[in-house]
């Protein structure tokens, strides 16, 4: 009797007052609107007639509906679709490899029995603080490991991420108790078997979280192609978009001091077409979210306890 009352009381104690509840909800509704509105606007612009855009500016409801922008995207030929394909391949391969490598590094560090774990933890931590600088980094991938202008250049530099590795290590440490590993050992499992059959399935939430980070990282990346890729067949979709927008912005800013700049801007894809590219580039990644969401909250909260 006494104890159930106590539980009830403590539940009541945890409940927020209605006013606070409304306040918190309102706050998050506003935050959501701020995030969603621009995306809706982009979609709306991509469906608006070009002339209408120039004269009347942006509107959430297209004043004059048109699918001409998508026409451009589809007929612009294989450039966009190839870039799309590159993005998908890079994201898939990159995420899987990256997860594997991060886990393989993080797992030993999470084990008490690993002797050099402090050294290797420091080794990873060091890279978070100090970098070699752009030019030496560039030379590593062009001269030491010549993978410039191959698809690998968009995968390899992001394979290992010290920060994700640390989250993963903490996740291993808190989710997989040493005694589980011990019992596996007693049952005759080797290190690899323990890792792949016992530890990884237990850590699905962590894998999903880090996996999502990696997916987003690879999908949204335009920096690696910007620095390394000179072969236009290897451009990914984000880079294509970045390149177009950046060119227009640059030319419009008047920094390019040549008299033909106005003519060049006129040849650029129209506003609508740019938005259409943006819309299709959101495409697959938006589907990744619900897939990961199941694990996401759990993975994040646990990962947040670091040390």
């Amino acid at each position, binding site marked *: 009797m006494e104890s159930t009352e106590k539980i009830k009381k403590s539940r009541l104690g945890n409940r927020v007052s209605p006013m606070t509840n409304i306040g918190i909800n309102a706050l998050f509704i506003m935050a959501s609107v701020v995030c969603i509105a621009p995306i809706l606007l982009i979609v709306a612009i991509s469906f608006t007639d070009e002339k209408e855009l120039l*004269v009347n500016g942006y509107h959430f409801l297209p004043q004059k509906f048109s699918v001409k922008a998508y026409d451009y995207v589809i007929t612009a030929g294989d*450039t966009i679709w190839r870039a799309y394909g590159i993005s998908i391949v890079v994201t898939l391969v990159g995420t899987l490899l990256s997860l594997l490598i991060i886990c393989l590094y993080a797992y030993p560090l999470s084990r008490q029995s690993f002797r050099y774990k*402090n050294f290797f933890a420091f080794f990873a931590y060091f890279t978070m603080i100090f970098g070699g600088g752009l030019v030496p980094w560039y030379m590593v991938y062009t001269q030491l490991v010549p993978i410039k202008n191959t698809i690998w250049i968009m995968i390899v530099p992001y394979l290992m991420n010290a920060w994700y590795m640390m989250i993963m290590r903490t996740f291993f440490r808190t989710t997989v108790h040493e005694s589980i590993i011990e019992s596996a050992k007693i049952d005759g499992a080797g290190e690899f078997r323990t890792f792949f059959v016992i530890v990884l399935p237990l850590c699905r939430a962590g894998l999903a979280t880090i996996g999502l980070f990696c997916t987003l990282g690879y999908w949204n990346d335009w920096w690696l192609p910007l620095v390394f890729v000179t072969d236009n067949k290897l451009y990914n979709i984000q880079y294509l978009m970045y*390149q177009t927008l*950046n*060119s227009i912005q640059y030319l419009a800013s008047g920094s390019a001091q040549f008299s033909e700049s106005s003519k060049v801007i006129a040849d650029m894809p129209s506003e609508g077409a740019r938005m259409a590219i943006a819309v299709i580039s959101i495409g697959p990644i938006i589907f990744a979210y619900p897939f990961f969401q199941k694990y996401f909250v759990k993975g994040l909260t646990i990962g947040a306890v670091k040390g």
Partner: protein
Amino acid sequence: MFRTKKITILVLAAVLAFSLALTGCTLPVAPSTGGPTGTGTTSPTGGNEPEVELKMYVVGNRQEPDTPKVLEKLNPILKEKINATLDLNVFAWGDDYDQKTNTALAAGEPIDIVFTANWAANYNVNSTSGYFTELNAYLDKYPAIKEILGEDFLNGSAINGKNYGVPTNKEKVHNWGFLLKKDLVDKYAMDVSTIKSIEALEPFLKTIKDNEPEITPLCIATMDAPFQLLDWDRISDDDVPGALYSDNRGTTIINHFLAPESIEHYRLMREWYNKGYIHSDAATMQNQLELMKSGKYFAASQSLKPGKDAEVIASTGIEWVQVDVTPPVMSNRETTGALLAIPAGSKNPERAFRFIELLYTDAEVKNLINYGIEGIHYNKQADGRIEIIDPANSPYNPGHGWKFGDQFKDYLMSNEDPQKWEKFLAYNDQGLVLDSLGFVFDKTNVETQVSACKNVVQAYYKQLFTGSVEVDATIAQFESELNAAGIADLISEMQRQYDAWRAAK
């Protein structure tokens, strides 16, 4: 624990040594700027030299899909003439080109020819950093380029008397003026020949304001403002204070944003703004051309040259009348506006130079790179002018004409004035050669002041250029912030360098 520490130190030392070794790789590249003195034995005909591939980086819209086809056609010609083939890479404007080119230059990659300018793959910075090969010896050995460009223009692009790049032979001067919307000019029978100054535009703006409620008389966005018609001979970037008068009247560098003429101009713009001649959102607009396309504006300030109106008509789809206001001048803007340079990392600088020479002397090579293949990418008319086949979807329409070589060797397009090049040449001859031509400001000593002043200018110029704010209060604030940003040091450093340069000349 002790052992780990030891290992850590060892690894750190190794990492450090390794990264030092890596950065060291760039060093041997720099001194190889000796010119052709060592290679003087090779025969100029190229008969005995081994075939090489020349890698070229150019800025543009995109790598045109038909580039391989064009190169397939071009390479046999190059092979015969200089026993080389071309690998042409086009990267996009702004960051894309700058990032790729600058990193490759710094890493000493073997690129043979790069496009450079005061606004792309920064010519001054890369030249003074030793990333470009000095070309004077080549220019003497193969004199064709010197003859075509003329000493004046070529010297204008030299840094401390050394040429690190060869400028395109095109319009060598600039002037400023307005473009007016043609249908309105016709409607009100305006006599545009009376517009010889900014103020003279006012009656026309008034006509539009009074009679055309739908039309905004004057279109302004960012630096595309009537302020440009004051035509300051700027020492550094557009948004860095420090300029000379563009009529050679003195040698004292002043802060042109707060010069009496400029303040007078701000007042005029304020007056126009209050009268409703300028759109109220002008200070936040980004792109003048986009605005002009909407057809809701009557006048826009522009940098001009012969046939500018036709060009803007093509890109906006609206008819414009060109009104030249300021006299043409030859300034650093033009001499370093578009050049080709040979990176220090190039293994075949001489061959690269001879390829560049072909761009000045060989119309076939120039036009092939510029327009593609006859019959596939363009058709030639009886009068020698050409028509690009389906320009909007053309697989090869890179618009390279003004980027390298001799633009006067380019075919004219069917919608262009057949006299275009003659007019260009006449225009070039009219230009006043500024005393400051060839002076290059080296920012290194005042880097912080430059960027601080830049920030201040960026924060104020739009309001002042568009008349959106009260002039007196704003300039007082503008001035005090510029002073805090160290403008005095900046101007005196500019003056010091300019005086030293003039003394050396």
